[in-house]
C-alpha cells in the first residue's frame, strides 16, 4: 500500500512538473506582452506627439489647390498670349503672300518631322529613367 502511495505521489509530482513546463512558454509570452505594452506606453508618454488639427489639413489642401489654380491660370494666359502672336503671324503671312505662308508651313513640317525621332528618343529615355 505504502509503495503504491509513493508511486502515486511520484506520478503526481511528475505531472505537476510537466504541467509547469507546458505552461511556462505561455506564461513567458504573456509576461513578455505585458512588459512590451508597458514599455510601449512608456515610450509613447516620453515622446509626446501632437496630432495636427483637421482644419490645418483643410487649409493646406485649400492653399495648394488655390496655388495650383493660379499657376494654371497664369500659364494658360501666357500660352494664349503666345498663341495670339503665332496665329496673327500666321494670318499675316497668309494675307501678305501665300508663298511666305507655304514656306513657313513647309519649314515647320520638315522641322517637326525631323524633330519627331529626337522627341521620341528623349521621351523614351525619360520614361525609362523614371521607371527604373
Amino acid at each position: 500500500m505504502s509503495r503504491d502511495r509513493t508511486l502515486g505521489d511520484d506520478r503526481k509530482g511528475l505531472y505537476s512538473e510537466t504541467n509547469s513546463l507546458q505552461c511556462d512558454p505561455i506564461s513567458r509570452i504573456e509576461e513578455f506582452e505585458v512588459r512590451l505594452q508597458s514599455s510601449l506606453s512608456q515610450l509613447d508618454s516620453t515622446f509626446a506627439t501632437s496630432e495636427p488639427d483637421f482644419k490645418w489639413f483643410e487649409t493646406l489642401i485649400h492653399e495648394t489647390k488655390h496655388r495650383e489654380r493660379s499657376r494654371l491660370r497664369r500659364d494658360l494666359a501666357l500660352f494664349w498670349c503666345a498663341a495670339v502672336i503665332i496665329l496673327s503671324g500666321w494670318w499675316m503671312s497668309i494675307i501678305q503672300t501665300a508663298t511666305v505662308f507655304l514656306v513657313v508651313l513647309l519649314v515647320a513640317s520638315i522641322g517637326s518631322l525631323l524633330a519627331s525621332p529626337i522627341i521620341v528618343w528623349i521621351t523614351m529615355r525619360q520614361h525609362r529613367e523614371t521607371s527604373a
Partner: protein
Amino acid sequence: MTTQGQLPWEGWVLVIAILLGQGTWLFLDARKHSAWPWLWGIWGLIQAPIPTIVYLLTVRKIWKRKKR
C-alpha cells in the same frame, strides 16, 4: 488670287479654332504629364493634326494601353 480669297471667313474661324483648341489641349495635357508643355502647345498652334498624333503616340502611348 490669294489663299485667303479661296476660303470663306467661317473656314478661317474654324481653322483658328481647331489650331487654338489643339494647342491648348496639348499644352494642358503635356503640363499635366510634365512633358514639355510649351513645345507641344506651340507645335499644336502651327499645324494639325500631326502634333496630336505624335503626342498621343509618344507621350500618352495609346498603343500600349490598347494592348492591355
